[in-house]
């Protein structure tokens, strides 16, 4: 798809399909990055939503199918796969989570599998889906939801909300604020504590989402660069090793997101004093 210069090709591939409110008040798809930026917050990335919902539904459907037919005696192959993932998640929660909360397990499982599936879209060759959607008249199509910062922030802010909710629920509002105010230096240095703890609290969702976004965006960009700059008969020499390496990256990123969520929520469930 060498329609235009490499720079145009690249910027086309990193542009989401955005539907929103134009500055003149009408609603519609953005034609180009400029228009998408002008829409501001009142816009939605249709491709991100579509692919993330699709992968999420695939996750729910697949796991529900196994859950319904789960056999104790004769597990099917799918059940084996699901159980493998399941036991990995259960083991991680058991190791890292020191509270009692029945939402942690399903939360960790959803995060791991969903992020993994969204990341997996990265391994689909960069031009397949955009080309097909171009043929049916869709201008932009970015099919890896985790390369959209909205998607990763959507998840990390949800986790952040849970952190604060359980922090207040378990420790009480006083305990939660006390932790922000009286650590790590004691009551004498309250303002310093407040600044330090607030920064470290805010840094958690920020690092969570930006780590995932950065890794996936960079990975996708490398694929796009290879496709843009290398002649088509040589692309495999670079894209295949990168894809193989990327299998590790997408799994690792899903695992890190899950693990950090467990750890952060575990911190919300235990007070500093007990350390």
């Amino acid at each position, binding site marked *: 798809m060498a329609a235009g210069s490499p720079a145009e090709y690249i910027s086309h591939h990193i542009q989401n399909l955005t539907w929103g409110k134009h500055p003149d008040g009408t609603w519609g798809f953005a034609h180009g990055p400029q228009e998408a930026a002008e829409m501001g917050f009142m816009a*939605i990335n249709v491709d991100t939503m579509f692919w993330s919902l699709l992968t*999420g539904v695939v996750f*729910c459907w697949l796991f529900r199918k196994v*859950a319904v037919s789960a056999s104790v005696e004769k597990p099917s192959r799918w059940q084996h796969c699901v*159980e493998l993932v399941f036991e990995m998640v259960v083991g991680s929660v058991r190791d890292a989570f020191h509270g009692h909360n029945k939402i942690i397990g399903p*939360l960790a*499982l959803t995060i791991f599998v969903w992020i993994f599936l969204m990341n997996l879209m990265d391994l689909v060759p960069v031009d397949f889906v955009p080309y097909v959607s171009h043929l049916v008249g869709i201008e932009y199509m970015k099919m890896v939801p985790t390369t959209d910062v909205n998607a990763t922030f959507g998840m990390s*802010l949800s986790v952040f909300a849970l952190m604060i909710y359980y922090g207040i629920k378990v420790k009480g509002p006083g305990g939660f604020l006390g932790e922000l105010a009286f650590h790590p230096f004691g009551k004498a240095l309250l303002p310093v504590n407040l600044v330090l703890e607030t920064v470290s609290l805010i840094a958690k969702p920020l690092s969570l989402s930006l780590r995932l976004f950065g890794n996936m965006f960079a990975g996708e960009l490398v694929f796009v660069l290879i496709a843009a700059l290398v002649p088509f008969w040589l692309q495999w020499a670079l894209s295949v090793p990168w894809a193989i390496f990327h299998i590790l990256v997408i799994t690792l990123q899903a695992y890190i997101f899950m693990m950090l969520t467990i750890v952060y929520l575990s911190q919300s469930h235990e007070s500093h004093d007990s350390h």
Partner: protein
Amino acid sequence: MNMNLTLIGQAISFAIFVWFCLKYVWPPVLKALEERESRIADGLAAAERGKHELELAEQRAGDVIRDGKDKAQDFITQAQKRADEIVEAAKATAREEAERIKAAASAEIEQNRNQARDELRAQVARLAVSGAEQILMREVDEKAHREVLDKLAANL
């Protein structure tokens, strides 16, 4: 890198997926896994129990065999003793019988001897009488001399 409504859409779908997982995926799979774990544990316990029971049964079987051997030995000893007794009893009976037969025989012999002696004695007396008759050439009055003759016969 525009922040927009996708953020909220994503958070909502995330919440829905987590809820779905919590409600419809997590419990059944966890149940299946736990049930399998408990079944494996039960199976291992049953195997352990079976092994223990086998050991007990082997021990019991050994006891029974030993018991049987002891009893058989007793039977053999008793039978031998009884056989010895029977043989001894038979021997004793035989000895008694032999004694008895011997006694009867010797009594008979004694009787025959006495009889023969009596006959012999009578004959000798008769011979002596006839001899004396011939020597004296005259009739001896048997009736008159009966006493003498009987005395003579008794002394023979």
